């Protein structure tokens, strides 16, 4: 699947421009998420503050890309892969914007958490979960950049692991709260951060589904992973089990 080689050079440039902007937005959002997680884990108040205020740029990019997509639809009437690219982009940027929102939320809670004691007890669990989520996000953005449907389908199952991590963390937090009710406030904040991380994983998974739609032309939302694999990626079955 290629963007270039349209007869109209301008059309090529417009599509290329949209894609580049999405990748730029993805980079920005990914870095937002990383910074937020870093601020959370290292109780870095200043960093958290920066991240909490950095959401504006992401929102503006979403609006710009949306506008550009509308323009291309109106002027070029894209079809087939071009149409799927534009549709996927419109959806991907929505998810990216939400990820940005979640990162902002994490940063806001981090700001409050940073003033309190260090969350030493939950640090390793939180760190593990956030690494998992950030990897998912990174890989899904990579899959989008490379238009790699196989890579995207590999990511699809990983939110289960995140859910497991979330459950673990929740149990831990409940114990923590039962130990000392004064911890409840912070524990809830941590819980909300974890919740946001889980959301980010969901959005990353959505992006993967759009990548599959974009490349394969198949809408794989609300479809079981086994079905997707067996139907659209028959040659990937062995790899997928790893």
């Amino acid at each position, binding site marked *: *699947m*290629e963007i270039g*080689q*349209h*007869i*109209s050079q301008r*059309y090529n440039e417009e599509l290329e421009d949209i*894609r*580049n902007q999405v*990748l*730029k937005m*993805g*980079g*920005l959002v*990914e*870095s*937002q998420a*990383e910074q937020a997680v*870093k601020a959370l884990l290292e109780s870095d108040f200043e960093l958290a503050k920066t991240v909490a205020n950095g959401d504006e740029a992401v929102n503006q990019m979403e609006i710009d890309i949306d506008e550009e997509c509308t323009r291309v639809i109106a002027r070029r*009437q*894209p*079809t*087939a*892969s*071009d*149409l*799927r690219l534009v549709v996927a982009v419109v959806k991907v940027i929505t998810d990216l914007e939400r990820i940005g929102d979640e990162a902002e939320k994490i940063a806001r809670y981090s700001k409050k958490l940073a003033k309190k004691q260090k969350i030493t007890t939950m640090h390793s669990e939180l*760190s593990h979960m956030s*690494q998992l989520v*950030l*990897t998912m996000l*990174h890989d899904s*953005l*990579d899959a989008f*950049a*490379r*238009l*790699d449907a*196989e*890579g995207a389908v590999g990511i699809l199952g990983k939110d289960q692991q995140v859910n497991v991590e979330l459950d673990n963390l929740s149990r831990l937090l409940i114990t923590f709260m039962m130990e000392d009710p004064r911890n409840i406030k912070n524990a809830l904040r941590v819980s909300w951060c974890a919740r946001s991380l889980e959301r980010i994983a969901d959005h990353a998974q959505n992006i993967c589904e759009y990548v599959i739609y974009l490349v*394969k*032309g*198949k809408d794989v939302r609300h479809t079981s992973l086994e079905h997707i694999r067996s139907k659209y990626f*028959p*040659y990937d079955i062995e790899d997928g089990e790893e």
Partner: protein
Amino acid sequence: MTDVINTMPGMPRAVPLESETPKPAVDAITGEKHRSEFDVEINGTVGKPLVDNAKMSSRNCDVFYGDKQAIFGVDLDIGNNEIIAMIGPSGCGKSTFLRVLNRMNDTISICRVTGEHTLDGEDIYGKKTDPVLLRARVGMVFQKPNPFPKSIYDNVAYGARLHGLASNRSELDDLVEASLIKAGLFKEVKDDLQKPGTGLSGGQQQRLCIARAIAVDPEVILMDEPTSALDPIATATIEELMDELRSNYTIAIVTHSMQQAARVSQRTAYFHMGKLVEVNDTDKVFTNPEHQLTENYITGRFG
């Protein structure tokens, strides 16, 4: 975590367009080609060229102009009460194929058509089939509006008179009126039936031609770029008309406008260099074509 944070904020990713791990060209289990490996070769038609409720069907259709082959082994069904659009670059054989369906190619002496072609299961090119009767059953509307230099009334009545469809004047009047109504032209011309058909606007002329075709009461209407000479408003009127006609007629339309094909048809057939590359539901063709050539054509890559 450090390996995760390798992208600076605001930096676009490196974009290798090809996937890093090369995939086998053909899958070992299914023998199916992966879509990225589809080249510009055409090995048979992809998609769904055949339907269950075929009104007309062609099998292994070859058309030759003298020594030059214009169409290569096309298999295609046209379903009952459907609009099938035929698209493709100029000279791809779509118009030629359309003209196979009502034997218009008979008028070109060097043209030779082979293969099996049926209308309701009857062989179109059989010895028993009379091309005149066939053309009464399979009407045609042409690219350029071509009303006869006669009155509007005579234009519409022409086919009926030719085939003796009306036994007296009042029957003929009714037939003309009904045809004009079906073609959505009656209101505009009902007071000017004796005025020359050539005096109408382009869009009205084309609707007059449709009325003329309908008046013979055909089962199939072939349209060869019917709106290519019309402005968008007239085009929209005709497209709307086609949609209404669909309940009673089977329509095959050749068009250069992909948007038109997308708007009016249920199925779309893509021709390339005399071969039928892909036939599928129009939705499918315009969102996710199976063949690389179709994709290239409808996204405007090679034209």
